[in-house]
């Protein structure tokens, strides 16, 4: 056991992240349970019904969502990936020089075609 503890690298910054993760998750779970433990609870059908400005709900909440949200999520995924590639490039930019600049211009240029296509097709318009 002593051996095990001494083998942990406390100086590693990722150890601090792990420590913080445990505390943060513990606090979040703890607060929710605390809230449940401390508050009173009296059941009442009206009180426990869904909010609808004081009247009975007149439509169900299980509506189907517009496909537009799906398109936004997909475009987000695309540009998130692009950003992920851009970071190492940005760090190395001054070492790569003109060569790196042209590389990335081609990469971003191809992805821009996708954005322009989405734009022209109206996937970015919301009414």
């Amino acid at each position, binding site marked *: 056991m002593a051996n095990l*503890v001494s083998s942990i*690298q*406390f*100086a590693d*910054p*990722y*150890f*601090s*992240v792990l*420590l*913080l993760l445990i*505390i*943060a*998750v513990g*606090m*979040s779970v703890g*607060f*929710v349970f*605390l*809230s*449940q433990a*401390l*508050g*009173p*609870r*009296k059941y009442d*059908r009206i*009180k*426990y*019904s*869904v*909010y*609808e400005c004081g009247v009975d*709900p007149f439509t169900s*909440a299980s*509506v189907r969502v517009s496909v537009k949200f799906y398109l*936004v*999520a997909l*475009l*987000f995924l695309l*540009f*998130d990936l692009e*950003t992920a590639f*851009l*970071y190492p490039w*940005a*760090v190395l*930019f*001054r070492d790569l*020089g003109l060569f790196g*600049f042209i590389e*990335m*211009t081609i990469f*971003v240029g191809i992805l821009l075609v996708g*954005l322009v296509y989405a*734009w022209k097709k109206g996937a*970015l*318009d*919301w*009414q």
Partner: protein
Amino acid sequence: MSGLFDLVVSVARVAVMLAFTLSLVPIFVWAERKGAAYIQDRRGPNRARILGLTLGGLFHPLADALKLLFKEDFIPDGAHRLFYQMAPMFALAPALMTFAVIPFGPPVEIAGRVVALQVADLNVGILYIFAISGMSVYGVILAGWASNSKYPLLGGLRASAQMISYEVALGLSIIGLVMVFRSVRLSEIVASQGTLLWGIVPKWGVFVQPLGFLLFLVAVFAEANRTPFDLPEGESEIVAGFHTEYGSFKFSIFFMAEYIHMVVGAALIATLFFGGWQVPYLADSGFLLPGGLALGLPGALVFFLRIGAFVGKVFFFAWLFIWVRWTIPRFRYDQVMRLGWKVLLPLSLANIFVTGLVLLLIDGGA
């Protein structure tokens, strides 16, 4: 022995960071209410008192938290119970973790060891912040969906679509900054900002990347769901958005998460674009003004000046969030999405392109 030292340092840094962010939450809740009151020519909270002291209403957030803690904790009929309980956890945990890589002071020497004043000086730096803050979108989606009610569902959808749209702009807006400072490690970015540009202007992010700063500022406001981007809880249309069906302390968890996001956003603006803990012209030995004037200062004073500078900058930018909220009206949803995709995204790509060209010219000439 050195292992024990490292463990103590690690625990202490986590404790200081959490204490700092969590204690700022009630302070800014108070600042928001009081600031709103003065902007609207009211007095604001001034009643709650302990031993006759009101401190300008500073006890109100405390009283609110206690009250909410003892309120009925209910789960509406028809909600997805487990997911409903999990949503506040998904909102709070990432909020608590994002501050970890932000340095709140210069490295100090304790017992012959150099200790960095940040929870974790990760080599992925900024990417860590994006990774963790990206998780908070699940809190919003889950809360909206699990309530099984239409206003939360609409609010959750709007909020999540808005958050992911601006996450793209947020990520792209600081690529230019990374190109200039050649690092994603926040401690290195802050250290680079201690030098001077042309011998007079501090090399702060805002001076080398003015457009990047504006784009980042807008994206941070949208990410934190603050006015003018507080559509997710636009009370005039969808009651209170994704947390309509939440009450008691679970509601205040969402509230806490929002204010922590605000604090982290302010700290990020300060760190990336305003030198973090750097004070202009202040070196380790004291002030060195461009004209050749020098003013020697003891090391301890320099240290506290720097920490004070960081805290002051965080307070200023957090106040900016509040100020903007009570000054600018809310956008319409189509305007928000248009701004994110059709303005911020192309502009941030253009910013990267121009930064690249300028850097090529500088490097080619030198």
